[in-house]
């Protein structure tokens, strides 16, 4: 049976969600998205520069992908709700990544304002995925408010530091029923693999792919790492111990004497 992720009422094949920021060009981004074979792609909303003739990013995102706008730039719930409604009005669908940040140094999310936005937008029929600090009580509240998934950060956005929040994310994996998707800070394919191995449903990666020397090859590497991590999780990781456990038989050595 095919292993699919059920999210927002859809069956999703790829457990690698990709962000579209920071790529050197849209054509390069398109190639990376194709290499990653992602099903869900995030975008942001910004004021148009009326003087520029910039390309439409949507033309470079495969039509088969679910488009998920983020609410980046929002400093409170009201701003996030406003951005979400604008995104929906643009015809991009009703998937929204809630991102409410007041702290510009670490870009850590404001869980309380995020929760308020989830409550409002889930009621309006949005498929809501909140980016959050990995806190069990808040994750439960997000879930109860109708979040389709919770997206705890691994480390600060764009820091490429990996899963520094591992123990807290593991608690969410054990206790939260909706998919747990690690978003932010994953710097290498092994970080993504680690998340899937510990039972996270998926990961969202942007910077580590976009600013790699070869983003297309890096997208492929992340895809393979996510797949390996998921397979390992389903296979059931062997237990670890503090002392050795011989993998070869401890009998029948050549030095053994028969008397």
């Amino acid at each position, binding site marked *: 049976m095919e292993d699919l992720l059920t999210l927002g009422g859809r069956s999703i094949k790829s457990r690698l969600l990709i962000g*579209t920021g920071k790529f050197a060009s849209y054509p390069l*981004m398109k190639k990376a998205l194709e290499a990653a074979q992602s099903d869900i792609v995030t975008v942001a*909303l910004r004021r148009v520069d009326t003087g520029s003739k910039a390309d*439409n990013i949507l033309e470079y995102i495969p039509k088969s992908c679910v488009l998920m706008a983020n609410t980046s730039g929002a400093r409170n719930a009201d701003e996030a709700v406003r951005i979400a409604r604008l995104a929906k009005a643009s015809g991009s669908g009703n998937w929204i990544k809630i991102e409410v940040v007041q702290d510009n140094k670490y870009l850590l999310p404001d869980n309380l304002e995020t929760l308020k936005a989830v409550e409002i937008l889930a009621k309006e029929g949005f498929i809501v995925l909140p980016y959050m600090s990995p806190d069990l009580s808040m994750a439960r509240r997000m879930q109860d408010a109708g979040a389709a998934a919770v997206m705890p950060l691994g480390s600060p956005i764009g820091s490429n530091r990996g899963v520094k929040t591992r123990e807290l994310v593991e608690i969410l994996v054990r206790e939260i029923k909706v998919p747990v998707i690690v978003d932010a800070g994953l710097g290498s394919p092994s970080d993504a693999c680690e998340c899937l191995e510990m039972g996270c449903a998926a990961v969202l990666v942007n910077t580590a792919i976009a600013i790699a020397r070869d983003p297309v090859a890096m997208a492929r590497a992340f895809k393979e790492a996510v797949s390996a991590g998921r397979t390992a999780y389903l296979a059931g990781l062997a237990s670890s111990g503090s002392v050795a456990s011989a993998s070869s038989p401890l009998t029948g050595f050549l030095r053994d004497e028969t008397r």
Partner: protein
Amino acid sequence: MILTLNGKQESIEKPVTLDALVTAKGLCPDKIVVEHNFSIISKEDWSKVTLKDQDMIEIISFVGGG
């Protein structure tokens, strides 16, 4: 009259519709969303909205983001 377009004040000589403003700015209607005094205006209704002095207009579109 004075409009605030994407946070910047702009002076225009005579009342225009949203439709005309979008055209005058050379924007492709298919890739933008327009908000007029905090209300989202669907494309079909742009021609029905005539801008007044002190109106606030936001014109946004998608960009790369994570």
